[in-house]
C-alpha cells in the first residue's frame, strides 16, 4: 500500500543525506563543545561531501532548547560559521525535546510549498553548557548596589548580601521541570510506570537491551552517520561515550531512584543520559535533486503533533502516532521500523502498553480496536536515548536520520520516528524509502 499525498501538500520532500556528532555524556562540568561548535562540526563534513556549495542552500533550520548566551538564533550563527554566506537565511525552532523534529517538519513544509528547494535542518543541544543563573534576590541586590551613589549607601547595599543570594539557578534542572504541573520529567515517568504497572525489572531490562543494541550497532558499523569530533586539546571523539557495553541487570538494580526518592523506580540507569550532541538532515525537492544529481535516501510522508496532560507527557508518541497512522489507513504491521525516543525506559514501555490497550485506544485515541502490538525487534534497533543519550534539541533529527539508515540497511520500506515532549506533547513523522 503506497502512501497518499505528503502531509504538507504540494511537492514531495526528499532526504538526501545526514550526519551527527557522537553524543557525549555530560560529566558534571561544561564539555569541550558549545552547542554551535557541535552543530558546525556535524555539518561541515556533510556539506564537504556534497556536489553543491554551502551557499546554494535555501535555508538552515536548527532546533535547540537552550542555546548559550552567545548563541542567540543559533541556526544563523551555525549557518554563517558553516560558510553558507550572508545570503542564506537561517532560523531556530524550539519545541522542547522535539526541537530537532520540529526543524525537519518546518523544512518539509517549506519544500512542499515550493518556498525552498534545499534545506539543512537539524537539532543541537549542549546540555553541559546550560547556563547557571543568578537568582532573583541576587539580581535585585546587584541592581541596588549599582543604584547606590554615596559611599554610605554603597556600604548599606553591600551589607544587604545574604548567603541565600549565592544559590544559583541551574537552568538545566529548571528546563527539565514542567513549570505548569511542577513535576520533573522523571516524575512524569514514575506516574506512567504506576499507571501501566511497569516494574523496575522491566525498566532495567529495557535499559540493558538499549545498551546491548547500541554496542552491537557500533561493532557492526551501523552508526556510520557519526562524524568525528575534534577538540582543541588533541582529543577526538568518534563514538557515543555513554555506552556501557558491560552493564548488567545486577548493576542496574543497584542504582537508587533519582526523582521519587526513596520509593520510585526511575533511576539514572533506566533514563536517557544527559548528553551533548548535534544531528542534521539535508532535505531537497525533486528538481533540486535532479539539478545536482543528488542521491535520495528517503522521503518524508507526513507528520503529526499532539497535546496531552503534561503530567503524563511520556505518552506523547501514542497520541501523535495514532492519528498519523490512522490517516493513512495503517496499522502497526504496515510499519517496518520504529524509532521512539527513549526519554525513560518506563515511558517507552508505557507507550507500548497503551498502544495495545483496548481501553486506552478507545477513550484516548478514538479507536474501536487497539493497535497491533509494536514488534520490539523493530523498535530502536541500534539503541536509543538510554544508551546513546538525549541531547534534547538534537534527538528528533537523530532518530529521523537513523531510521532512514535502518530502512536502507534492512532494505525495508516504511518507518515512524516519534518523541515525547516535555510540557505534554508528542510528535511523529512517517518516512519511506523511495524504492518501496
Amino acid at each position, binding site marked *: 500500500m503506497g502512501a497518499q499525498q505528503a502531509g504538507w501538500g504540494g511537492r514531495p520532500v526528499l532526504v538526501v543525506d545526514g550526519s551527527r556528532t557522537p553524543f557525549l555524556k555530560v560529566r558534571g562540568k561544561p564539555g569541550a563543545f558549545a552547542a554551535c561548535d557541535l552543530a558546525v562540526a556535524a555539518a*561541515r563534513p556533510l556539506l*564537504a561531501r556534497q556536489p553543491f556549495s554551502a551557499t546554494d542552500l535555501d535555508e538552515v533550520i536548527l532546533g535547540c532548547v537552550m542555546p548559550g548566551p552567545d548563541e542567540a538564533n543559533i541556526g544563523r550563527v551555525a549557518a554563517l560559521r558553516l560558510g553558507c554566506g550572508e545570503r542564506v537565511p537561517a532560523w531556530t525552532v524550539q519545541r522542547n525535546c522535539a526541537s530537532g523534529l520540529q526543524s525537519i517538519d518546518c523544512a518539509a513544509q517549506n519544500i512542499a510549498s515550493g518556498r525552498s528547494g534545499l534545506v539543512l535542518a537539524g537539532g543541537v543541544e549542549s546540555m553541559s553548557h546550560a547556563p547557571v543563573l543568578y537568582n532573583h534576590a541576587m539580581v535585585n541586590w546587584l541592581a541596588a548596589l549599582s543604584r547606590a551613589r554615596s559611599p554610605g549607601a554603597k556600604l548599606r547595599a553591600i551589607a544587604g548580601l545574604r548567603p541565600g543570594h549565592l544559590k544559583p539557578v541551574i537552568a538545566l534542572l529548571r528546563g527539565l521541570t514542567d513549570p505548569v504541573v511542577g513535576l520533573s520529567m522523571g516524575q512524569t515517568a514514575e506516574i506512567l510506570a504506576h499507571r501501566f504497572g511497569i516494574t523496575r525489572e522491566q525498566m532495567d531490562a529495557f535499559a540493558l537491551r538499549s545498551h546491548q543494541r547500541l554496542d552491537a550497532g557500533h561493532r557492526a558499523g551501523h552508526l556510520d552517520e557519526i562524524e*568525528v569530533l575534534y577538540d*582543541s586539546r588533541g582529543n*577526538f571523539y568518534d563514538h557515543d561515550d555513554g555506552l556501557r557495553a558491560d552493564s548488567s541487570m545486577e548493576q542496574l538494580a543497584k542504582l537508587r531512584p533519582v526523582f521519587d526518592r526513596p520509593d520510585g523506580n526511575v533511576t539514572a540507569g533506566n533514563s536517557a543520559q544527559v548528553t551533548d550532541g548535534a544531528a542534521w538532515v539535508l532535505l531537497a525537492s525533486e528538481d533540486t535533486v535532479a539539478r545536482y544529481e543528488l542521491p535520495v535516501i528517503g522521503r518524508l510522508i507526513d507528520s503529526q503533533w499532539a497535546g496531552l496532560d503534561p503530567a503524563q507527557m511520556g505518552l506523547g508518541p501514542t497520541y501523535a502516532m495514532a492519528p498519523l497512522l490512522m490517516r493513512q489507513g495503517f496499522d502497526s504491521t504496515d510499519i517496518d521500523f520504529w524509532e521512539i525516543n527513549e526519554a525513560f525506559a518506563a515511558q517507552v514501555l508505557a507507550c507500548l502498553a497503551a498502544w495495545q490497550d483496548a481501553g486506552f485506544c478507545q477513550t484516548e485515541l478514538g479507536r474501536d480496536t487497539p493497535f497491533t502490538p509494536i514488534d520490539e525487534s523493530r523498535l530502536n534497533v541500534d539503541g536509543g536515548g538510554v544508551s546513546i543519550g538525549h541531547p534534547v534539541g538534537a534527538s528528533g533529527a537523530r532518530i529521523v536520520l537513523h531510521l532512514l539508515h535502518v530502512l536502507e540497511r534492512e532494505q525495508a520500506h516504511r518507518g515512524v520516528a516519534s518523541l515525547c515532549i516535555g510540557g505534554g506533547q508528542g510528535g511523529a513523522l512517517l518516512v519511506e524509502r523511495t524504492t518501496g
Partner: protein
Amino acid sequence: MTDTDNHFRAETDSDNIVWLHFDRAGSGTNTFSTEALHELDRQLQSIATQCPRGLVILSDKPNGFIAGADIESFTRIETEQQALDFLRLGQSVFNRLAAYTLPTVALIHGFCMGGGTELALACRYRVTRDDPATRLALPEVRLGIHPGWGGSARLTPLVGGLKAMDLMLTGRSLAGRQAKRIGLVDSVVPERHLRAAARRLILEAPAPARPGWLDRLSNSFIARPLLATVMRRQVAKRAPQEHYPAPYALIDIWRQHANDTGAMLEAEAQSVARLINDPTARNLVHVFFLQEQLKGLGRDSDYRPEHVHVVGAGTMGGDIASWCALRGFRVTLQDQSPERIAPAMQRAHALFRRKLKQPREITAAMDRLLPDHKGLGVARADIIIEAIFEDADVKRGLYRELEPRMKTDAILATNTSSIPLEELTEALARPGQLVGLHFFNPVAKMQLVEVVNGASTTAEVSAQAMAFTRQIDRLPLPVTSTPGFLVNRILMPYLMEAVTLESEGVAPGLIDRAATGFGMPMGPVELADSVGLDICLHVAKVLASHFNAEIPERLQQLVDVGRLGRKSGRGFYEYRKGKAVKPKVSGSDAQLEEISDRLMLRLLNEAVSCVREQVVGSNDLLDAGMIFGTGFAPFRGGPMHHIQSTGAGALQARLQQCTSRYGERFTPDPGWDSLFDTQGG
C-alpha cells in the same frame, strides 16, 4: 622646479582647516625621498602663511600612511656627509612642523613606519584607524640604524623612556589600540569617524597627551644609567654589539641626552650618519631588498586559490594546514585516521590563540580548518599539498589515488625535502601540475618556501605556486629539482663538519659558540639536535648518494642508540624540559676561529657549487634563501655577499689549506675559479 606639487595636495575646508594629502607620484606607497621632503617643506611654509585653524596630514594611498624614508635612496649615500645632509633635511622639515603653534593632526591608516611615524610624532595629535591593517612602528634597527628624523627625541618624552626604547630597540609594530594604550596615539576610531576625530581634535585643541609619572621618571637622569644597563643586557641576548651596533648607539644617545630635545636630535643625526655607512647597515639594507625581490616573485600570476587540501597531518603537514587557515584559506587536512589528525588540531588551536587572540577570530580560523580523514577535500581543492613521509613509492601511490579525483587545474604540491620531482611525476597523467613547496620547520616562524621546479612543472604552475606562497605571507624561492634543493644542500656540509668536529673531541658548546660568533642564529650542533639526528642522517644519506660525500660515523652511532636529539631528550646535548643543557666550555680565540672557518668554509664551498649548477637564478636569490631559510647571519648579507666582501681568492686559498690539513671534503668547488675570474681576486 620640475617636481613642484607632485606629491602633496593641500585643501582648505569650511572650518579653515588645511588637509594636506600625501600622494607620492609614480608609486603605490608613500615614502620620503629628498624631493618629497623638499616639497613637504614648501607646503608647510606656505600653509603657515595662511594662518589656518589647524592642519591635518593624511595619505591618499589605500595601503597606508607613510612607509618611511625611501630605502632606495639609502643605497645612493656614499659618504657620512651625504648621510648627514639627508638626515638634517628630514629633521628641519619635521622641526618646522613641530614648531607650528596651530594644532596639527596625523591621520593614520594602514602602515605607518619609520619616517612616517617620525612625521606623526612631529604633529601635536595622532589619530589612527581602528583595524588590524593599521600598524605603527620605528623599525630602523632592522636596517642597522635607528630613528634619525627626531623619532627618538620626540617619542621618549611622549611615552616615557622605557616604552619608547622598547619600540625602537625591537622595531616591533603596534596596532592603533596598543599605540593608544602607551600614549603614542590620541584617538583610535573606525574608518567612518576618522575625519570627524581629526576635526574634533583641531577644533577642541585639548592639551597634548603626557606620560604618567612612572614613564616620566624613566627618562630622569637618575633612572637612565640603570635602565640603559638593563637594556644593553637585553639587546645583547639577541644582537651582539660587534655585529649590530645600532641599538647600542641608540641606548647611549638616550642615556646621555634624554630630556634635551635639541641635543638628542643632533646626536641622532650624527649617529645614524655614521651607522648608515657601516657594513652592517649596508648588508641589512641589501637583505631588505632581497626580501622585496622575493615578494615580487609572487606578482606574475593572478592566481586566487580558495581551498587548500593538505595530505599528511604530521608536524609539517599539520602546521602548513593551520598556517594556511590562519591566512584565510579554507583548508582540509587529511591523514589516515582521526588520531593522526587530532594533535595537529591542537597545535592549530594554539597557533590561532597566539596569533589571533580574539576568541571570535580563533573560532573562525578553526572553522576554516576541516579535519578530513576521509579525504573529502581532494575533489574541491585548488591546491593540494602533500606532506607525507619521505618515500617515493608511497608518494607515487598517493598521487595515483589523488589525481583522478582532483580538479583538472588544481596544483599538486609536494613538501618533499629531498626527493627530486622527476622521480614522482611518473605516477601522474598531468605531470605539469606537480611542483615542490618546501616549507621549513617551524612553519609559523620560517619565512622561506622553496618553490621546486621539476623538469615537467609548467611555467604557469610555478608562477601560481609562487603567488600562493605570497598569499600565505611566505617568501617564495624558485629552485631546481636537484637533491636537497638549495637550503638543505648548503646546510648539510656545515652540519656534517660540526659532527666531525664533535667526534674529534671538540665540545659541542664550543662548536656552537664559534658559529653564533660568526652570526648564525643557532649553532650547528643544537640545530642538528632540534631537527632530529635521524632526519639529519636521512637527508645526509640522500645527499651523499648524489654528491659522493662522506657522513661522519658518529651520526649513525647516535641514531643507532636512540639519541635522536631534542625529541628523544638526548642527542649531542642532553635536554631538560626541551632545553639543551650546555656545560661551560672555554676555547682560545684562535681555536674558535679555526672551528668557525671549518664550518663556514664548507657551507660557502657548497654555496659556490650551487651557484655553478644554477640551483637558483642568482647570487642574490641564494643569499635570500640562506637568510630567510636558515637565518644565516643577516648582517653579512648572505653567503655570496660574504664571499664577495671577504674576497673569493682568500677564501679559496683557505679552502686549499684545509684540504691538505683536513681532507678532500674541503676541495674548492670548480665554481670558485669563475668567481675568481669575474671578481679579479
